[in-house]
């Protein structure tokens, strides 16, 4: 469904991603790995239409979406769980979810929000609470829930587990697994290499904006030199 060809992206004169290509099918998880500053977040934000794309193509079901604004990409079925969660802290939980469904009609929005609460019942208990007052784990749940409201087919997830308790991490990964089994395609950026390799189908490794390795997650897990060379000791 997603076919990225020779993607380059950056900020003004800074090039953060160079000539990056990969393929993603429905119901698959691609883990995007690399050390700090490798260009993982920049890649996701470029796919979403927020960071400036400098070259290459982003084909979604064969159609190049490179020039579409974010709202059109969401309509095509993309959504993001951004690095650092970036929930709207002054807004309530319910309002954050409303933003997640900003581009959908009222009935779809209602269904989407109900769905998010189903995935994360703890959010439902806190629907009127200011998002900024949630715990870190709840904020991550809200960030995921917010992305799900528009009912995406392709989910971009940045740093799912960072700073969270193991129990919460498990809960979030359970949701991802469920989404995948429903046919969702997921790009997962994860600091926790072990965790990422365990859940992913495919792996791409970035180093200083360049793609340096790609293949199946099983191959990546068996390739101890890969882990040592590009990801630091796991």
């Amino acid at each position, binding site marked *: 469904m997603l076919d990225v060809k020779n993607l380059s992206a950056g900020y003004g004169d800074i090039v953060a991603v160079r000539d990056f290509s990969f393929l993603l099918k429905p119901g698959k998880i691609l883990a995007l790995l690399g050390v700090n500053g490798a260009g993982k977040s920049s890649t996701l934000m470029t796919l979403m*239409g927020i960071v400036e794309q400098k070259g290459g193509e982003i084909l979604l079901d064969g159609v190049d979406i490179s020039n579409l604004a*974010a709202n059109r990409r969401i309509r095509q079925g993309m959504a993001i769980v*951004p690095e650092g969660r970036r929930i*709207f802290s002054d*807004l309530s939980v319910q*309002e954050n979810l*409303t933003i997640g469904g*900003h581009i959908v009609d009222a009935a779809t929005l209602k269904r989407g929000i109900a769905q998010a609460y189903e995935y994360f019942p703890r959010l439902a208990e806190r629907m009127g609470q200011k998002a900024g007052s949630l715990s870190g784990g709840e904020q991550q749940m809200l960030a995921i829930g917010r992305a799900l409201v528009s009912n995406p087919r392709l989910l971009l997830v940045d740093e799912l587990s960072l700073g969270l308790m193991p129990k919460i991490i498990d809960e979030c990964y359970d949701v991802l697994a469920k989404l995948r089994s429903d046919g969702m395609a997921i790009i997962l950026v994860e600091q926790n290499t072990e965790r990422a390799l365990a859940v992913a189908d495919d792996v791409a490794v970035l180093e200083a904006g360049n793609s340096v390795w790609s293949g199946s997650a099983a191959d990546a897990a068996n390739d101890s030199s890969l882990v040592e060379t590009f990801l630091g000791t796991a």
Partner: protein
Amino acid sequence: MLYLELFIQGLVQGSIYGLIALGLTLVYGLLRILHVAHAALFTLGGYIGVVVTNTTGSFPLAIVVAMVAVGLVGMAVYKLAYEPLLHRPPYIALIASIALFIASEEIFRIVFGPFGLSYIDPPLQGQIEIFAGFRLKYGEILVMGIAIVMLSALAWLSAKTRTGIAWRATVTDPEMAAAFGINIQNVRYLNFFIASALAAVAGVLVALLNNLVEPTMGSVPSYKALAIIVLGGLGSIRGTLVASLALGIIESFGTIYVGHLLDRDALAFAFLILILMVRPQGLLGGK
């Protein structure tokens, strides 16, 4: 009873400050620009109000026309003056804003003449006795009424509508708002429309209370509104309203009790300095 009178007069003045200063807060909250030229839109509102009332005889129509026309001018100010400067340091937009404000006085002078305009047949001049010996003009009651209606409408819009929620989300994190498909350009236009329309209605009302609009009508409100938004804790809507009413009331009492020391407009700044010494983040500001 004198206290109550002064208090109510203070509320009337504070309502006007609130209508003006709120627009500044909205612009600052969204773009981090100190929108000095806002006061020019206030003056423009006053002119349009007087001209439309005098030509059509309808004061309500004048209010609506002033709000819509000035709202559109406010959108144009954003598009032409601020948008090209958004990627520069904020003081550049501030300089542009000051220039625009100064130029606007001259434009008013050229278009409407140097001596100001008045209502030929000023509406709402009747008075009503609130209690023995204390009367308010209908116009003054209207000021408070309009302030309450406008602010309630705004509160409803921002809390209960999807547009309002998107607006607040954009204020919190514009990039993320865009990532969820919010057209932040439209949010900015809406923001300037509302801010400017509020200033316009304040201009029409001040023109009514003074029965005069002149080119320099915006100069005192321009700096006073800046004082108010600093006092309210930059960007805080509630703080702006509290500071507006507080300033109105303090001026009202101050002119009676310390008027021989400090003139009305100097009081505003004495108050500002005093509060900022105790609470540098403003009355309701965070940190």
